[in-house]
């Protein structure tokens, strides 16, 4: 089962994990990305494309499902405004054994940082507002997957 979603509502990690694990898979691996409140950050805003953001995530999910033998895959990205501590992204992958589930989660989070149409804007308590710049290290991590 593959579930991909992009929405502005809070991600309910417990509910998503319960739904994902309903199949009783041997190994479930997860990545939960949260908003860091460093440097006086008060809001993180995620801009996205109304069509291509979700289709980009769907393409990555399909690639992961081809590459590894997965029993279930959940890939959810939040968009819009969010506060420190809130969940931005949730990646869940399950397989009969841990190796494939762990590899799929790492692949998905690495590649979605460079391949999917999402843009972060930070607002700080002192009034500064700025768009986050892409990091070279993100590209290096994404490229190792070929």
């Amino acid at each position, binding site marked *: 089962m593959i579930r991909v979603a992009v929405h502005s509502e809070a991600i309910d990690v417990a509910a998503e994990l319960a739904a994902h694990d309903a199949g009783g898979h041997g190994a479930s691996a997860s990545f939960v*990305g949260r908003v860091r409140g460093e440097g006086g950050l008060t809001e993180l805003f*995620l*801009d*996205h*494309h109304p*069509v*291509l953001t979700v*289709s980009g995530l769907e393409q990555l999910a399909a690639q992961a499902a081809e590459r590894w033998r997965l029993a279930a895959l959940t890939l959810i*990205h939040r968009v819009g405004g969010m506060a420190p501590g809130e969940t*931005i*992204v949730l990646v869940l992958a399950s397989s009969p054994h841990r190796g494939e589930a762990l590899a799929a989660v790492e692949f998905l*989070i690495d590649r*979605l*940082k*460079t*391949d*999917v*149409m*999402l*843009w*972060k*804007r930070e607002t700080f308590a002192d009034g500064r507002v700025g*768009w*986050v*710049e*892409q990091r070279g290290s*993100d590209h290096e991590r994404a490229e190792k997957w070929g």
Partner: protein
Amino acid sequence: MRISYFAWVRERMGTGEERIDPPAGVATVGELIGWLAARDAAGALAFAEPARIRAAVDGEMVGPGAALDDVTEIALFPPVTGG
């Protein structure tokens, strides 16, 4: 064609979307970016550094050399920063 802008490109253009009819001689994504940069002050600000602009044509990520023939929608945006 319909053209859409995202993140700081949207902010600098002052709009998220517009319909454009580029003149003859604007045949590629790179030429379109150059034409927008020369069109007005907003375009000059948004597209001052073409190397920082990415493009998707009808849903596919493309390079600056991609042709604009039969294009319905083009999106122009900075490098992505999700995750």
